[in-house]
Structure formats: C-alpha cells, structure tokens
C-alpha cells in the first residue's frame, strides 16, 4: 500500500513550501522589507523543500509513478486542463537538483548580497522563492499546460532576477532581452501545445505516452508540432540562434546566474525534450534537427567562450555549449544521456558560477585579466573552482566526465558524423577556455583588481575591504557542498556506470580524455608558459576570432530585427493609424461640418430664393410620387 507520504505527496510538499514562502514574503511587506529575515524565511522553506524532494526521490523507484491532479480549467464535461504533480524517476531526481541548488544558492546569497539594502534583499528572496516554486512546478508538471505555465513563470523570475539591479541600464536591457528572446521561443511552444492538443485531444503526458505507445498518434503533421515544441526549448535552453540572451543575462547577481542560468531554468528546454522524447521519436526529422542544432550550438558557444574576458560570460557561453551537448544527445535519440549530463552539469556549473561569484565578490570585477594570482589569496575558492573546471573539461573522476563521454558515444551511435566531430572540437575548446580562465585568473601575476580587492565596485556590493580573500563561510559552505557532490558523482559514476541504452564504444573514453587534456595543454602553453603567443593564436584563426569577438554578429542581427520591428514597422503603423485610419474618419467629420457650412449658403437670405425652395419641393414631390412601388 502506498504510504501516506508517497512520492507524489512529498513532491507536492516540496512544491508548496517555496510557494508558501513566496506568498508570505509577497504579502507580508514588513517581513520582506526586513531583508535578512526574509532570507532566513526563504532558506528555511527551501530547506524543507529540499528535504521533501529528497524524500520524494528516495520514494520513487525507476518504474514508480505517483500522480496528483486537480481541475484547473473546467469545461462542459471533461476539464480542459488540470494541475498537479507527476512524480516519477526523472522528475524527482530533477526535483532534488532544483531543490538542492536552489537551497545552496539562497544560502550563498546571504553572503554574496550581504551589502544590499534590506528592501532589495527581501525582494531578491521573494523572487527566489517564486523561482523555486515555478521550477519545481515545471519539473513535476503532469501535462503541457502546467509545464507551459511554469515555463513562463521561470522566465518571469529570470527576467526579474536579471533585472535585480534594475537601476543599471545594462541589467534592465539584459532582462528584457532575455524575456523577449525566450518569449519568442515560447510562442513556438504555445503554438505547439495548442496544435498538439487539437491533434491528440489531451495535454496529459501519461495519456499522450499511452497513445504514443499504442501508436494512436497520427504521424501526419506531428513534425510541425514537435518542431514548435522544440522552438520553446531553443529559446529557453539557449540554442542557436536564440542563445544571445544568456550571456547578457549575466548582468544579474552571480548566484542567480548559478541557479537559473546554469543549473536549472536553462535546462528546462532539455528537460522538456527528455520528458517528451517518446513524442519526438515519432518525428525523426525534427529529432535530427535537434541534434544538428545542438552540436552546432555547442561548437559555436565554445568558440565564443574562448574570446571572452568576462569570467561570467565565459561560463555563460560554456553553459550554452553544454546545453548544446545535451541537445545533441537527445537529437541522437538518447534522451537519457542528455538528462544525465543535465544533472551533472547542474551541479558543477552551479559550482563554477558560485566560485566565480566568490572571486568577483572578492576582487570586484568580472575581468579575468584584471585578476591573477588568486590561487594563493583564495585557496579554497581555487580548489572548488578547479573541481568544477575539471568536471566541465571532462576529466575522469569528476562529475562531467562520464556524462560527456556518454554523449559523445551516443552521438556517434545515433547521429551522423559531423555533429560528432563538432562535439569533439567543442570538447577540446571547452577544456581550453576553462583552463584559460584558471591560468589567467588564479595563476600568474596578481592583477590590479585582485590586489586592490573590494567587494565588487562593479557589482555594487559595497565598499572595498582590503585585498581579495576567501569568501565567508556562508558562501564557502555551499561551494564545498557542490564540489564534494561533483566529486562524489564523478567517483560514483567511475565505480558504477549507470546503465545506458546503447553500447559505449571503447575508443570514446581515450578520445574524450585526450581531447580534454589537449585543450588543457594548449591553455597551459598559451597562458601559463606563454609558449604560444595568445595574439598569434588569435591571428591564426583570424576571421573566426574576429567573428567571435563580434559574437558572430547575431546580436546585431537581433538588434536590427528589433529596430526593424519598432521603427520600421510599428512607427509607420502608428502613423497610419493616426493620420490615415483616423485621418479618414476625421475627413468624414470635417466633410460633415463643411457640408453644413455649404448647405447653409442656400439660405441666401433672399425671399425669392426661398420660393425657389418651395418650387423645388413641388418638383421633388412630383418626382417621388412616381416612385415605383
């Protein structure tokens, strides 16, 4: 018998705790304005949610399902849409990731944003709670409607949190850019959902799965639907060409980047595809597209990451790149592999961001070239950052290794050759750019900012307090937890490979390791030993380098599109509305006025003309009397 607190109930609890925190903070203004108190409240609820999530995960076996549903949109007969939780193996493990990272980030933020005014801090934690709720709701969604709603809500939180420092014009701009770009993808998702509903008559994942298994879904036109769904994922998971918002999103506080723009929200697109892999498998063409775009995104972002000097931007492009990996795996038909990478990536990328946050907090700048020699000043930070870097680079015994290797294997097995090659190249570049950061920022001569220190003048964290040093415990703790988790996962996978749906070929492992080491070596040669001149390297890849610096002109393209929309389309429409549409109506009324003016002139004032009127009337009546009846 199901216990009282089965997985579904626990998941629901995990979902509702942050919701309660949000409502409490939103409604109880004094608590919110108290700042740190709001933080404690939020963290407390997040901790509870983490516990519940862990419980739900533990209570869910690989084949278990636990469902809770409530009517949301009633209709005559069967409701149009329901809300509820669907706790199964995938959703609960994702739930744990979300709860964990969310909890850690909230704790970390207490330190990172210690200098914020209380009102702002309260606002921050309100948003954080809302995000935790929305993300969990997305993860646990039993149907497309709830998924979409939460999908939009996390987008909203992303918008609000990127714009947390809303007085900074860059932050404001980045926030709306992120919102618009993802919204563009969401348009696709919404259309896809509507189309799918008409196609199958339901939003429910389980029902759809049953139909898919039973072959009841008509294949005709399904491609369009899955493509539209995929568009949503493109926006949210920053796939080419809608990836442009993610680097700009780094204007938000770093913990936000760690949580939303690395570990959880951006992976929602991947999660969506994982959740509906059985649907996508019915449309191989779309799936192939997913793979190709994923691989291309991975490579493109890796190239872009190589030329960034802002530590967060490097990480942001790296996130885009890794999302590309996951998509490539899904495109190859092995969603589980992609999902695995999603989980490991969530851990180590959060670690990297929080580490970067600690660095930024300490030195007050994002520019890696202004740092340098931090390894000695902030040893703890250096160690955890290195763990993250090694994980990302795909070094064995670290979290990212196995999942990345599995992706390469999956793409080799499931896809054409070129994506595989792109992914291998991206892997090489990943190792290179990450170690570029490590060497530049943590080794070498101390940079200007590192020496001066200062709690982030750039980020507005308050006055400087001596040279850079390790972060306080409240920030260090989460870092260590994540680092240990990354190591644990890495070692755990090394000991016991998770089961895969395909046979991992033997030569993949050496290849992956070799490529990663190669990347590290190149970085070492270039930035540590300076055996290779970075400038020369850049010149060697002249056009690519220039293009990368210009972000492949994609941002310009989007700006041009925005301008086109706002200026070239909307202005004329506005003008037409005012001066043509309204103009015509004004002309009609002006004509009416003039008609009155002209008509009154027949009233000449002369009696004989009035008699003409009488005669004219007689003639009119004579004519009208002959009107055919």
């Amino acid at each position: 018998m199901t216990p009282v607190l089965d997985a579904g109930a626990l998941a629901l609890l995990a979902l509702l705790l942050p919701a309660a925190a949000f409502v409490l903070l939103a409604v109880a203004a004094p608590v919110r304005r108290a700042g740190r108190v709001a933080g404690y409240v939020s963290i407390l609820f997040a901790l509870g949610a983490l516990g519940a999530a862990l419980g739900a995960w533990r209570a869910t076996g690989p084949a278990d399902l636990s469902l809770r549903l409530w009517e949301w949109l009633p209709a005559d007969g069967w409701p149009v849409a329901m809300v509820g939780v669907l706790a199964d193996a995938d959703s609960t493990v994702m739930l744990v990731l979300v709860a964990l990272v969310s909890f850690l980030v909230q704790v970390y933020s207490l330190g990172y944003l210690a200098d914020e005014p209380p009102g702002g801090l309260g606002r921050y934690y309100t948003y954080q709670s809302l995000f935790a709720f929305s993300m969990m709701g997305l993860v646990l969604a039993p149907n497309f409607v709830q998924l979409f709603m939460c999908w939009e809500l996390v987008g909203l939180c992303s918008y609000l949190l990127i714009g947390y420092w809303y007085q900074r014009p860059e932050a404001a701009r980045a926030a709306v850019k992120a919102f618009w770009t993802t919204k563009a993808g969401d348009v696709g998702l919404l259309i896809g959902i509507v189309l799918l509903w008409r196609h199958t008559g339901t939003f429910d994942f389980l029902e759809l799965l049953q139909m898919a298994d039973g072959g009841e879904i008509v294949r005709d036109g399904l491609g369009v639907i899955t493509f539209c769904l995929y568009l949503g994922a493109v926006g949210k998971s920053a796939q080419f060409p809608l990836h442009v918002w993610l680097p700009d999103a780094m204007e938000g506080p770093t913990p936000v980047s760690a949580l939303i723009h690395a570990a959880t929200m951006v992976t929602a697109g991947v999660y969506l595809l994982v959740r509906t892999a059985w649907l996508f498998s019915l449309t191989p063409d779309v799936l192939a597209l997913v793979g190709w775009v994923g691989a291309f995104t991975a490579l493109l972002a890796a190239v872009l990451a190589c030329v960034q000097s802002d530590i967060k931007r490097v990480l942001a492009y790296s996130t885009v790149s890794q999302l590309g990996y996951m998509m490539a795996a899904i495109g190859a038909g092995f969603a589980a592999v992609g999902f695995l990478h999603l989980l490991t990536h969530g851990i180590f990328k959060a670690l990297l961001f929080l580490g970067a946050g600690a660095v930024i907090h300490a030195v007050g700048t994002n520019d890696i070239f202004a740092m340098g020699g931090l390894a000695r000043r902030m040893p703890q930070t250096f160690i955890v950052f290195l763990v993250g870097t090694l994980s990302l680079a795909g070094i064995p015994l670290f979290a990212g290794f196995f999942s990345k290797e599995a992706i390469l294997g999956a793409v080799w097995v499931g896809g054409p050759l070129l994506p595989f090659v792109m992914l291998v190249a991206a892997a090489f570049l990943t190792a290179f750019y990450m170690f570029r950061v490590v060497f530049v920022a943590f080794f070498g001569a101390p940079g200007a900012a590192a020496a001066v220190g200062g709690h982030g003048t750039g980020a507005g964290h308050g006055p400087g307090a001596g040279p850079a040093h390790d972060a306080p415990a409240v920030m260090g703790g989460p870092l260590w937890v994540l680092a240990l988790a990354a190591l644990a996962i890495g070692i755990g996978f090394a000991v016991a490979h998770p089961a895969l749906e395909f046979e991992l070929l033997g030569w993949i492992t050496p290849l992956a390791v070799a490529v990663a080491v190669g990347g590290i070596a190149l970085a070492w040669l270039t930035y540590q030993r300076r055996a290779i001149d970075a400038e020369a390297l850049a010149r060697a890849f002249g056009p690519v380098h220039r293009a990368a610096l210009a972000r492949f002109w994609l941002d310009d393209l989007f700006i041009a599109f925005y301008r086109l929309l706002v200026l070239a389309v909307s202005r004329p429409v506005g003008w037409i509305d005012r001066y043509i549409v309204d103009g015509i109506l004004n002309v009609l009324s002006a004509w009416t006025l003039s008609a009155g003016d002209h008509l009154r002139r027949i009233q000449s004032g002369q009696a004989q003309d009035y008699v003409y009127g009488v005669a004219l009337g007689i003639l009119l009546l004579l004519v009208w009397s002959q009107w055919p009846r």
Partner: protein
Amino acid sequence: MPLQAYLILAAVLFAIGLFGVFTRRNTVGILLGIELMLNAVNINLVAFARFNGDAAGFIFTVFTICITVAEVAVGLALVILIFRIRRTATADHLDLLRG
C-alpha cells in the same frame, strides 16, 4: 371648350405668376406674381365647379378671393413698413438674416 383647356390656362397663369415671384426684385412686383397665382386658382375652381355642376366650387372661389384680398392687405402693410424702416423696395436687399 373642354375642362382641360381651362385647367391648362390656369396652369399657365400659375406658372407665369410663379415666374414673377422668382424674378421680380421689387416686393410689390412679387406680390403681383402671387396675385396671378391665386387668380389661376380661381379659374381652376370655377371651371371645376361649372363642369361638375356643383356650387361649392363657386363658394370656394368667393372665399379665396376674399382671403387673397386680406393677404394683399397684409402684404402691402408689410411693404410699407419695410419701406419706412429700410428705405428700400428691393427684396434682394433684405438679407440681414441668412445662413
């Protein structure tokens, strides 16, 4: 002569009177035109009465003649008043009120 001939004669007179009203500038002239129109009415009435063999038409004519006279009296009083105040006899000039 048939009735129609009388009616046509009356119609012609009526139209001439109307024409006079249209074109005369002098208010007295306009009055003369109106007289012609009313005169046409009388011809009409008498002709109908005779051809219908019904005396009512004759009586009607008596009334119209009387009323015509009354109207002329009013009209001429007005004309004299106008002359006195505006020192003009021309209807065209009377356009203080218009529009």
